[in-house]
């Protein structure tokens, strides 16, 4: 892992188009501002992991089958 030290109001670039700004430091809390393109999803890591795991469980496996029953593309 790359480790850098930054101060309040300083920032980082991830690649050419993602900016990470250190806005405020209060004890053990840090406020961070992120500027990223629309295609980049920014989430807290724990939420990302919970939802990714739930999606993984929800994604259908081989037990679902067709076309025994009629399939119609919807909205």
């Amino acid at each position, binding site marked *: 892992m790359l480790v850098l030290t930054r101060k309040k109001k300083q920032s980082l670039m991830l690649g050419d188009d993602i900016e990470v700004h250190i806005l405020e430091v209060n004890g053990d809390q840090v406020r961070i501002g992120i500027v990223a393109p629309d*295609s*980049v*999803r920014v989430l807290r890591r724990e*939420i*990302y992991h919970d*939802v990714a795991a739930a999606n993984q469980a929800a994604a259908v496996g081989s037990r*679902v089958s067709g076309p025994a029953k009629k*399939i119609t593309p919807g909205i």
Partner: protein
Amino acid sequence: MKLKSRHFGEIEVEDDKIIEFGQGMIGFPQAKRFCLLSQEGIAPYQWLHAVDQPDLAFLVAPQLLLYPQYELTLSDCEAARLRFSESDQAVVLLVVTLPADPKDATMNLLAPVVIHEAERLGAQVINERHGYTVRHRIQDEMRSQAKEGTSHAGANQEKEAVADAG
């Protein structure tokens, strides 16, 4: 175009039925185009099927039917990304997980799928202001709705539909 689904075989999907998910589904970043498939016997559930990934599909159902009292707060940023203006109506779907025993089916209230139908844009968003979880049992919900007398005629049919889909 032809969607060659590993689950349902070859399906013809018109271009205007495709919904763009610019960020994909969470944990599945490569799939960015989806379509909603209705299957006989599982209504009001539908399949949210990746157009470019033959084996990726999610069982979804309208939030209005599964959890009528659901509250969704869409950030300005997400609303803008989906090109919603004040008067636009969002289609809100909940992702359903169907374990071996359909009685244990859960719905993801934390991360609903929001679709702007007219723009053909969709996203899985994080709705974290209301204390919702990723695995909320559907049966518990049906039971508490029945107890409160807010149940509607469709509730039992929906449960049967879940069982049928499994």
